[in-house]
């Protein structure tokens, strides 16, 4: 009952404030409730074991004027495997709230975030993880570094631009998360900072992340990352190094759109060739949610971008570990959706 009233009041505020702020902005941009997100259907074979993974990640955006936004992302992922290896597919669907946060876009230098938010650590957690963005469907081996235990914090965050000129832009995010065992809002007590410098002329971004895990055992995690999209070729290069008390690792990823290939260009221009190399090394024996053995994973893949935000994905990787080496295949499709939830000006 109370929930419905809160939802109704939120919708009310959204509509009233949007009417006023549109006047301030001399554009035709609308500020209405929106449902965005991605979905996918991935068939994966890991060491001979096939798995079907349908997934959907809806993102609900509720603007209150043009300076306050309430947003939330949920995740529903199915994991289905053959019963006894040869029977029907059976499994279960996992669901959760990735984040639910209140954003106040105060000014260029400060945006205030409160609630459950994604931990800003490295490149993947906030930016590359969504199913419709991810070049490869499996997360890097070192992803748990800096994102333990749920990948989200519950508390407050301050982010924005420190300084912006024509030749560079410095961005930052600082946060503090409390320990929470609340259902769907669980998080560890952490604090940290992420900062990066972007050079628009060179199209290079360099950044570092630091996190102090305040729940016991207290440990530090660090990351350094670089991203480069040269303007002359449709190439995207990204790399990251992560380290914590229990392990360290890196990944290097490249994706190249074949839009400059002169042969059958109308078809080939939508093909993306991707590759990634990653290595992970445990420290102090590993454990605590981190791998305890050395791992190497070279991966290659082909993605095809269809019209209307559909994408076909495929990749192959070889996983090397001291005990067993396995082949892992992925094939499937992803879709990015963006739907208005309210009638607004066309």
């Amino acid at each position: 009952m109370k929930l419905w009233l809160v939802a109704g009041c939120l919708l009310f505020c959204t509509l009233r404030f949007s009417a006023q702020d549109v006047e301030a902005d001399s554009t035709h941009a609308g500020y209405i409730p929106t449902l965005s997100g991605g979905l996918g259907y991935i068939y994966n074979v890991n060491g001979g074991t096939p798995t079907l993974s349908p997934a959907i990640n809806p993102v609900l955006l509720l603007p209150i004027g043009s300076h306050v936004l309430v947003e939330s992302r949920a995740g529903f992922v199915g994991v289905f495997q053959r019963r006894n290896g040869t029977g029907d597919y059976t499994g279960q669907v996992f669901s959760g709230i990735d984040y639910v946060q209140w954003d106040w876009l105060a000014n260029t230098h400060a945006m205030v975030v409160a609630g459950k938010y994604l931990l800003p650590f490295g490149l993947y957690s906030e930016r590359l993880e969504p199913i419709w963005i991810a070049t490869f469907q499996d997360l890097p081996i070192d992803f748990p570094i800096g994102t333990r235990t749920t990948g989200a914090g519950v508390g407050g965050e301050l982010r924005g631009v420190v300084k912006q000129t024509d030749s560079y832009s410095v961005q930052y995010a600082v946060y503090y998360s409390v320990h929470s065992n609340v259902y769907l809002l669980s998080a560890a007590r952490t604090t940290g900072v992420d900062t990066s410098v972007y050079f628009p002329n060179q199209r290079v971004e360099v950044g570092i992340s630091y996190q102090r895990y305040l729940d016991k055992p207290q440990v530090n995690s660090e990351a350094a990352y670089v991203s480069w999209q040269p303007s002359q070729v449709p190439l995207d290069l990204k790399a990251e190094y992560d380290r914590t008390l229990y392990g360290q690792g890196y990944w290097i990823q490249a994706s190249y759109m074949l839009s400059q290939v002169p042969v059958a260009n109308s078809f080939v221009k939508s093909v993306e060739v991707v590759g990634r190399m990653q290595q992970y090394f445990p420290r102090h024996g590993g454990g605590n949610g981190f791998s305890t053995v050395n791992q190497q994973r070279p991966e290659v893949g082909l993605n095809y971008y269809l019209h209307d935000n559909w994408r076909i994905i495929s990749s192959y990787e070889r996983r090397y570990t001291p005990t067993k080496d396995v082949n892992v295949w992925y094939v499937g499709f992803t879709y990015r959706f963006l739907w208005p939830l309210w009638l607004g000006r066309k």
Partner: protein
Amino acid sequence: MQKTKSLGTAVLIAVIVVGASPGPGQVVAGAKTAKQVTAAGSASQKAARKSGEQVFTDNCSRCHKPPMSISPRVTGTVIMHMRVRAKLSRQDEQALLHYLAP
């Protein structure tokens, strides 16, 4: 209990109906915007649009491919979301709005 539920539902419907009605300045805002757009042939707006394209190329494509299309109805909302996610400046946000929903 039943009364409370009915009352709550009535309040919720009232809130939504009042919210959906044109707010103060909503119609006026539309008219003003139209006028401004009529006079939008100015060099400054063209420059802003060009700048918006540059902002789009520099920031959005760092993480993902551009969407095939985006309705102006949701542009403001989406740009707010991306401003938070990508830590964009207010200036970049305005440039993007002029580029995507002039």
